[in-house]
């Protein structure tokens, strides 16, 4: 066999081999493309998780459980089952999230329950409207949020106060407080999201030699930079809840905490909360 014959033979074999490999590769294409799409969605959820943590969790909670009196829960059955019908949205839930995140909300749709942070109730996040995020980043956040759809449970909205509300007068005489009831209330109100779980607000629990909020209540009013009007630890806590911006602990941002508690808590609620907080030395 001379060189030309050999080359023709080997060349033919190689062309056949290439065809076989391409054929088998092609048989798997449908599956590969489906997997690539799944993987891409998985990665979008990963990126969405990081962005949600950085941009959304402060108001909507790290696990999307919302903060009563501030922002609605997203990891919530109502959000996935009923919300779009209530607002008359005709597109997909993902589009609804993208639209809301992109342009924000000038006014809350449920001002009694979730007034948001004032005006706008929710800022615009799209870089087209002066926000920090690109369109594709907002899509990943939507992918992350919709990934809760199967596991979301119904989050109870705390009942509106029965009886007169507590008001903003911090010298008001309060009934006897129950620390256990106060602790339960702090959980349902969502205080723990920022003050215990994530250090968005001043932490309540004692840690690394820093005393808890119960001790701070007594010392903060004596600090030279204190700008509030309280004279006792009880009044300090009262004031911080109903008028959080009068004095903000250094290192934390003003205007983050909801300012609606004066109109949503009763005297007894306030007394319970204060009693609970004073136990956290």
């Amino acid at each position, binding site marked *: 066999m001379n060189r*030309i014959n050999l080359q023709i033979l080997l060349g033919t074999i190689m062309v056949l081999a290439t065809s076989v490999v391409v054929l088998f590769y092609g048989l798997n294409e449908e599956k590969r493309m489906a997997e690539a799409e799944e993987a*891409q969605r998985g990665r979008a959820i*990963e990126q969405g*998780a990081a962005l949600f943590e950085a941009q959304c969790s402060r108001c909507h909670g790290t696990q999307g459980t919302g903060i009563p009196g501030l922002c609605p829960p997203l990891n919530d059955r109502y959000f996935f089952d009923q919300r779009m019908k209530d607002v008359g949205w005709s597109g997909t839930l993902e589009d609804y999230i993208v639209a809301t995140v992109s342009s924000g909300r000038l006014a809350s749709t449920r001002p009694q329950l979730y007034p948001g942070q004032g005006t706008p109730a929710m800022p615009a996040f799209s870089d087209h409207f002066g926000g920090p995020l690109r369109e594709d980043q907002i899509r990943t956040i939507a992918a992350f949020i919709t*990934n809760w759809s199967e596991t979301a449970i119904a989050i109870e909205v705390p009942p509106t106060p029965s009886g007169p509300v507590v008001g903003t007068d911090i010298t008001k005489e309060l009934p006897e407080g129950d620390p256990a009831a106060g602790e339960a209330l702090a959980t349902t109100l969502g205080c723990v999201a920022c003050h215990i779980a994530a250090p968005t607000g001043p932490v309540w629990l004692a840690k690394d030699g820093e005393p808890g909020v119960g001790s701070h209540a007594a010392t903060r009013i004596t600090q030279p930079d204190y700008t509030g009007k309280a004279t006792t630890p009880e009044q300090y806590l009262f004031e911080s809840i109903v008028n959080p911006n009068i004095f903000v602990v250094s290192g934390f941002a003003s205007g983050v905490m909801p300012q609606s508690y004066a109109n949503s808590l009763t005297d007894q609620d306030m007394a319970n909360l204060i009693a609970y907080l004073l136990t956290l030395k």
Partner: protein
Amino acid sequence: MLKSLNLQDMRQKAYQALDQRARAITAGLGLNELRALMRGEPPTEKPNPRYKVHTTSFLFHIRPRYYEAGSTILTHTFRLGFFTSFFFFVELFTGLILMIYYTPSPEKAYESILNLLNNVPFGQMLRDIHRLGAEAMVIFTTLHMLRTFLTGSYKKERSFTWLTGVVLLGITMFLSFSGYLLPWDQLAYWAVTVGTSMAEAAPLFGNEINLLLRGAPDIAANGLLRFYLLHVVLLPLAAILVISIHYYKVSREHGISLPAYMEEGNVPPEVKKAARQRIDFIPDLLTTEVFLVSLGILLLVLGVTVFNYHAPLESVANPQVTPLDTKAPWYFWWLQGMLKLGDKILMGVILPTIVVLVLVGLPYIDRNPHRSLYKRPIAVALGVLSVLILVMLSYMGLPQYGIEMEPAQRIIQDMSPQEGAGPLQRLPFEELQLGSYQVNVNEPINMCPNLDFGCPAFEAFFRLYSDRVNQAIRKGDLPAETQAVVVIEDWQKDLRKITLRIVWPGEDGKSKSYERIVYLHANRGME
């Protein structure tokens, strides 16, 4: 009537008709001749019809009629130039198809790549082959040049061919580099930012070059469009032009050089005569070329299937976030290495310009008429030395070299890089068992008693992490009180949050820490 149905006659007529068709199609080769060609037999007619093709057919006209036997020895050329042009055609072909699916705008570019991977049958294969071909083209161009240098084939009448070759090396590198940006991912964006910022170092007009390339102070829509047009129009056209000149010199003017010993060595005259013997293009060289093309295609296809080469794709470009360990494409590492050695203008502009000038002027600088390795020891020594320096500079160009990073940051970056996949990303999802694992407190043994088969991959990962931390403690980079943890939390359905955190007491008594939070989804796929 019956008489005219002569079978013999009909066969002859049919044969003649077919023969005529064949001659028309092959520009002069009859059926008999084709048969002889396939069997490797000598020409059947006189004058040799195999030469006629070279005058009647354009595609054969631009090919040589023959090579000299000595120049076709495999170990003389290794077919490097042939494969370089083969890869160029592969790039043209795959590139044209890829263009159908690509949109050169920052909003759409990355999406169009994802679409190519998710929705286009054979889309990933095309992209992988295009990328592999590009890398191979750079490698083969460089090797081709090195071979030409070592065999001394750039001398005398081939000086100008060498010069066009140097131009082609530049075009090849810039073709590859301009294609780098197009996927618009973090890798692309920052590699090109690093690359173009080198141009900025040029005195007087550096800033203008940079502006011209990027279309704005930072790479954005304009820069992407410019790189795209460079990649698909200007540079390919330039490449085709210079390749034509380069190839014309080889095929029409002076042929491929003979091995030095056959030309100027002390060998018997019959060896010299045999070396000059002609090997015809048709059929010998043509068969070999078709054979090599099928070999090349097979290797490329095997590379992207069996050997699992995949073109990288990181997360979408983000001008606000510079990932750690940003680096230029590998064929520019040497330049990055040089930039680390000294002044930006001296190392980034003046020295590279000198290198290019030396390459261009090599045939005119090196006046030694001999081609044999042994008769030009200085040139060969300098050549080998430059290759070694190039390799060393490339190593120094790596981000791991000479850039100080906090030891804790280095460890965490190596375990889980900001972009691309590290040991953490390669763990199977089910082995990520919830919990908090602390180095030197938890042993990397039997870490997942709940799993039937344990979690060997996670244990290996944790052992690696522990070793890195302990190594740093032994070397004194981290104090002995250092705490390193891996925390795995269940974050969502099919989503885990993994925190890598290293806490150590700083010199001022305050505790310092470095942490990275990574979210991993079950379907993310492995890289």
